[in-house]
């Protein structure tokens, strides 16, 4: 059953992805991107990654889509047909994809419980019994049922700090780009006028 849903979703994803390449109305493309995110979120649920699915819906389908729509509203909705030959990009993609496919032949088969990925580090996580550093293998139990939360916030909490910092970096970057440059309605928000504008940039 799982595999059927899995295959169906993958098929839909493929269709969506191709549509993203081919459609030239950018609003439609952004919506397709949102759909792609939703579909992948559904796939994540099938793959037991509920946390990832949740995040993908909120961030991928939600925030990304809104930002992309906002951008499209600011830059125009048509993608021009352009004369560049698709041969070289196609070649690069085929080589890269070919490499990856070649690499999969030795990959452990999908979904097997005895794959190395499930053997080395994961069992201690799942047993909630992760060794502490420098204490001769003495372990600590955290007692939080959602292992993803524990791994995220504690075992690999440093990664999460980094990830929070990436988000922060994006804010700093975007503000740097936007502060004090043209087309600002935000700057006039405190002053008179501007208040009646419909935020068409986001609708």
């Amino acid at each position, binding site marked *: 059953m799982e595999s059927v849903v899995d295959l169906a979703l993958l098929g839909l*994803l493929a269709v969506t992805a191709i549509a*993203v390449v081919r459609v030239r109305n950018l609003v439609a493309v952004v919506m397709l991107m949102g759909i792609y995110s939703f579909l992948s979120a559904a796939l994540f649920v099938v793959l037991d990654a509920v946390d990832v699915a949740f995040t993908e819906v909120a961030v991928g389908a939600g925030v990304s889509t809104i930002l992309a729509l906002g951008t499209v509203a600011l830059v125009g909705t048509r993608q021009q047909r*352009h004369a560049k030959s698709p041969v070289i990009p196609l070649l690069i993609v085929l080589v890269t*994809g070919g490499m990856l496919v070649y690499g999969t032949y030795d990959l452990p088969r999908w979904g097997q419980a005895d794959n190395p990925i499930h053997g080395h580090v994961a069992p201690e996580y*799942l047993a909630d019994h992760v060794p502490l550093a420098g204490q001769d293998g003495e372990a600590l139990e955290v007692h939080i049922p959602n292992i*993803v939360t524990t791994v*995220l916030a504690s075992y690999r909490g440093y990664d999460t700090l980094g990830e929070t910092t990436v988000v922060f970096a994006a804010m700093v970057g*975007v503000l740097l780009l936007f502060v004090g440059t043209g087309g600002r309605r935000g700057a006039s928000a405190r002053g008179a006028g501007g208040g009646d504008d419909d935020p068409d940039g986001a609708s």
Partner: protein
Amino acid sequence: MEVLGLFNYWVVIFLMMVGFYALISRGNLVKKVIGLNIFQTSVIIFYVSTGKIAGGTAPILIGDDHGVAEAGAEVLYSNPLPHVLMLTAIVVGVATMAMALALVVRIRETYGTVEDDEIQEQVLADEAVEGARA
């Protein structure tokens, strides 16, 4: 299962490559960014699918709050680590996308277009001006 085992990966690779193709072949900057998004999302799908154990369940331990470890031993859980990594990757993806889109907006404001070849023309014109002025 054997065939499906690889087929799954292949489809994911196909998805990645479609995104990658959109990224490198399209001249519209917005399209490039969306291509990048598809590419990154597909990489996430790849990671997550490696964490799956057939017949497994989400890594949220079942049982009473205190005896989790014992209870967990009998249930087959999928691997939580790829999930954690991909939570990070999703957030990194949106951060990159926000940066990219902000740049696109600024490029549109200064160049009046978001098509790569038209921008390139103006860039070349700038170079010519610089050469002539100096």
